């Protein structure tokens, strides 16, 4: 029986982030669905797992965690010997650079990308109308971030270093949604970014996350 339990749904970007890490590490886990439409995430018992009423939450034996980027980092450290490496091995200075780019995703990329995915993809799913002014503003901000990524990826195969790390993985869910919309041109029009997107979305572990969505 799996000791790792993930409470979430395959459609949620934050849940996908955690699932990607689990698949990269080849770990057994049980995905326990949370009925978002019924508001289960805002009630007990879910609130005991995540008092902020969000998904995902993870249980591993006695340990209970939430915040997807804390969960992925725990998985990467605790199971560092299993499956794919998700952190750059090396001294503290190398780890610091990985952490810089983990922060960049969380502070610079995600605030714009996830709102843009919300406008372009999720609003439609829930019968709401996309706001074109918001889309324009968010795309403008995201372009500036991607210009920096383009320069970075001219010097480095992946964002933190020359190997795939959590810094790249954390981007996958928002990129996945945006590549299915007109916003994909932001990524396609930048050669290094486009190459990087193709590489990271082609990973077998990511394909397994997408498969879960289809079930």
């Amino acid at each position, binding site marked *: 029986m799996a000791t790792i339990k993930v409470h979430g749904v395959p459609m949620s970007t934050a849940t996908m982030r955690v699932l990607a890490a689990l698949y990269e590490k080849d770990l057994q886990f049980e995905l326990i669905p949370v009925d978002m439409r019924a508001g289960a995430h805002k009630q007990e018992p879910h609130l005991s797992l995540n*008092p*902020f009423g969000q998904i995902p939450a993870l249980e591993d034996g*006695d*340990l209970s*965690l*939430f*915040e997807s*980027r*804390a*969960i992925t*980092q*725990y998985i990467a*450290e*605790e199971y560092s010997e299993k499956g794919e490496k998700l952190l750059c091995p090396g001294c*503290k*200075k190398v*780890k*610091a*650079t990985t*952490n*810089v780019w*983990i*922060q*960049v995703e*969380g*502070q*610079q990329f995600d605030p714009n990308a996830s709102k843009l995915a919300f406008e372009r993809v999720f609003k439609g799913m829930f019968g709401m109308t996309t706001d074109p002014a918001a889309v324009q503003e968010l795309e403008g901000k995201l372009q500036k*971030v991607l210009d*920096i990524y383009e*320069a*970075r990826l001219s010097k480095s195969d992946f964002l933190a270093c020359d190997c795939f790390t959590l810094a790249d993985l954390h981007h996958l869910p928002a990129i996945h949604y945006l590549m299915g919309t007109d916003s994909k041109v932001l990524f396609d029009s930048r050669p290094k970014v486009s190459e990087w997107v193709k590489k990271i979305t082609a990973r077998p572990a990511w394909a397994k996350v997408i498969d879960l969505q289809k079930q």
Partner: protein
Amino acid sequence: MDCLQMVFKLLPNWKREAEVKKLVAGYKVHGDPFSTNTRRVLAVLHEKGLSYEPITVKLQTDEHKREPFLSLNPFGQVPVFEDGNVKLYESRAITQYIAYVHSSRGTQLLNLRSHETMATLTMWMEIEAHQFDPPASKLTWEQVIKPIYGLETDQTIVKENEAILEKVLNVYEKRLEESRFLACNSFTLVDLHHLPNIQYLLGTPTKILFEKRTKVRKWVDEITSREAWKMACDQEKSWSNKQRN
């Protein structure tokens, strides 16, 4: 004989100072002593008793949005931290780096006992960054920074973000009933990361959100009265007195 001693032996006096400075790579902090993100880094440096050279970036004239600053941080933000030839930005990456490198010195800011204890700490650092900081930094921007630049506070944005912050502080209130500080029973980076915004908000009407919750209030009193934090907020002691002219 180590490198330092070799240098002293070989170089004439006038050259020694410059060479030693190069060898003993000093920390540099590019930023502004009033910037929340810069203070986050200064706080850690003071908790660890580390020396550093502060280099002022003139935010008022948009120095951070142009070269040569953009070569340090292409995102055009302060602070930037230099350790030899390593340049770091994103204040929370910098604080974690300093806390790890100097984990056996000064205040213990991490919980390195096990992967599980570190995971809980990482989780609360994410909470500060993704739950607390968005409303708190918008409230600081509207009520503290905009007036400095002669801009008007937007009370709708204040009201909206206070409502969001209240929900976060409700979670904190419950957490602080079980734990003396947010991640565990000792002061860590998690609590420290909150200090810059909390300090500014205590000077605004938003302070009541912290004061009306008993556990939160006690926690705020405790973390804001730390010596290292007071030093980080003292513009003369932590910045102008340390600068090389």
